[in-house]
């Protein structure tokens, strides 16, 4: 099986390529609209660089592509890949509008290709253990979930709304929203959000926020996607945490914080290492398995869309200063 990569804008693309290599799958082709960036990456992983997206997609030996471009470019890359009959893995957030996301899902459905969203957090061992515990009835019926996916302001294209589609809300709502959907088995029906811009960082983009989500089954949740961690903060990636409240008890889920913390003079601060296992690998393996067996992937493009709808609803709620129904999202 041979895989191509469409754009290397997102930092996770390195891990994507490494996971495929570990699975014995060759990444033979890399395209990027930013030629210098694309070439450098292609060289690093020993792939061929294509300056033309369509030329890459025309390669008959490539059966699947990973889309790791800037958020605003996901749609055109995914739709082009689907039209070329390639299976797709797409970084999050899936799309910058529901309309875009629906078009992506439809294009892949029509082409009969596997469409997966890159939601590695589903493969965090603590998350999977929590899901299993909950399914066994250990804490009864779920009442509420308090979630956080803090981060630091990434700068670069992430703070350009034209390329990113939004700031912290767009960047850090979707992972935990997807986990909440997965854990409850229910769908978000309405969202209320408080959002502030240029509050924690120097960029005129949303960096501080608090989102409240109502699920169809009555579960209420809050999610903190803020870029509230600065360079001195020691935890991995910010965090991916959930406090799950059930009728019979509670589970606190520590997503990416399992591991030692190092304090070195070279770094000048603490640094937490997450050593409980590679979540990216589980996510990529699931994609490859889906492609090779013809079974639907555990997390689909549609899951990516449902998660991004909550982020879009949060922005709408901010503008309207009221809770909004998911159905109002465009």
């Amino acid at each position: 099986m041979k895989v191509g990569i469409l754009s290397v804008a997102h930092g996770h693309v390195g891990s994507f390529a490494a996971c495929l290599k570990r699975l014995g799958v060759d990444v033979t082709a890399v395209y990027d609209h930013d030629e210098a960036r694309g070439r450098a990456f292609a060289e690093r992983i020993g792939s061929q660089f294509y300056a033309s997206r369509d030329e890459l997609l025309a390669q008959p030996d490539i059966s699947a592509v990973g889309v790791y471009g800037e958020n605003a470019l996901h749609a055109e890359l995914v739709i082009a890949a689907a039209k070329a009959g390639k299976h797709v893995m797409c970084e999050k957030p899936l799309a910058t509008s529901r309309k875009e996301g629906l078009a992506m899902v439809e294009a892949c459905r029509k082409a009969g290709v596997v469409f997966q969203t890159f939601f590695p957090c589903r493969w965090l061992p603590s998350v999977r253990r929590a899901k299993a515990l909950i399914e066994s009835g250990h804490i009864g019926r779920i009442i509420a979930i308090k979630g956080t996916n803090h981060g630091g302001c990434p700068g670069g294209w992430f703070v350009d709304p034209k390329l990113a589609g939004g700031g912290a809300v767009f960047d850090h709502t979707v992972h935990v929203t997807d986990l909440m959907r997965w854990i409850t088995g229910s769908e978000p029906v309405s969202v209320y959000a408080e959002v502030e811009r240029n509050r924690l960082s120097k960029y005129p983009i949303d960096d501080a926020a608090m989102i409240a989500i109502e699920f169809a089954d009555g579960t209420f949740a809050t999610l903190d996607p803020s870029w509230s961690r600065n360079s001195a903060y020691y935890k991995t990636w910010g965090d991916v945490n959930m406090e799950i409240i059930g009728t019979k008890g509670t589970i606190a889920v520590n997503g990416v914080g399992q591991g030692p913390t190092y304090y070195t003079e070279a770094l000048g601060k603490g640094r937490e290492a997450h050593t409980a296992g590679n979540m990216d690998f589980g996510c990529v393996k699931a994609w490859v398995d889906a492609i090779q067996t013809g079974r639907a992937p555990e997390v689909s493009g549609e899951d990516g869309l449902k998660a991004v709808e909550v982020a879009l609803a949060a922005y709408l709620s901010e503008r309207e200063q009221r809770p909004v129904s998911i159905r109002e999202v465009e």
Partner: protein
Amino acid sequence: MEGSTHGPSNKEDDIEMALRVGIIGAGGMGHGHARAYQALGQELVGVADPPSPANAERFAAALGGKVFASVEELLADPTIDLVSVTVPTPAHREVVCKAAAAGKHIVCEKPLARTLEDADAMIAACRDAGVRLFAGHVVRYFPEYEHVKSAIDRGDLGQIGVVRTTRGGSEPTGFQSWYRDLDRSGGLLVDLAIHDIDWLRWCFGEVERVYATSSKTRVPESPEYALAILRFESGVIAHVEGSWAHPGPFRYAYEVAGSKGVAEFDNLRSAGIVAQTHEHPGVVQSEYPYVEQPLLSELQDFVRAIQSGEQARVTAEDARAALRISLACLESARTGQPVWLKKEGAAQ
């Protein structure tokens, strides 16, 4: 009469005239107040707890002082300068108003009252009687909460963006399960989260709007869990978590994130002692001892305020403002809509 019932105090003189204190409500908080007053060198005159005479007897046996058969009898004692009101919230108004009419200064436990109407009546009664009214918002006296407020005020954390607070543990067993009755206790948002709401207001000013959710409106038979989002006029966003649904040790924690830094605190992660015994395997006793208990610092502040005529760190008006925010959260949880706190007229 305004101010102290004794002569003007000399700040250099470390022998203040001791206040003589009556405790109304012989439960856990009453015991705490009494022990704190004694540690401060104040004189415990006695206790009244008419609904629970056994509690009153136990109180007197443990701490000394008289058992008064009724609140009126205690308030009629001319030697008492100050009363602590540590009865369930719905009884605050009646007891405080009676105490004011009897000319006693009052320390009333939080929440000040269950309704704004009650709170206003209590504040007015004390003002009209010329007695001081203090409210037990003790979190302002917890060193961890003082410390980070200083850091915030100094600008160490820059412009504050997002603040998160957590408070809770297992469900308290109150007298006749009054905590479980939303009408009587106000539930988590009024009884417990109000601690953090007052502290947040102390740090960040007035609240513009709130959005809250509580399990009480969905799964009322389960121990309550509530989440509130507070949006401050200053732009700060706060997330307040209150829980009676966590069966483990009592937890209080916060996180303050600003443009220049993050401060975090969690009493369970920084416990002073963690004790375990072979006899009770799996039972982990986590404690966070202080040199000086925050309750003691609080009551010392109130006693000093009475003796000097000055303001305390937290006032009855602060307590009323915190109650207003908590009640707005309750309403939001009930309606599913955000609630704006409109500016109230000065005449309110």
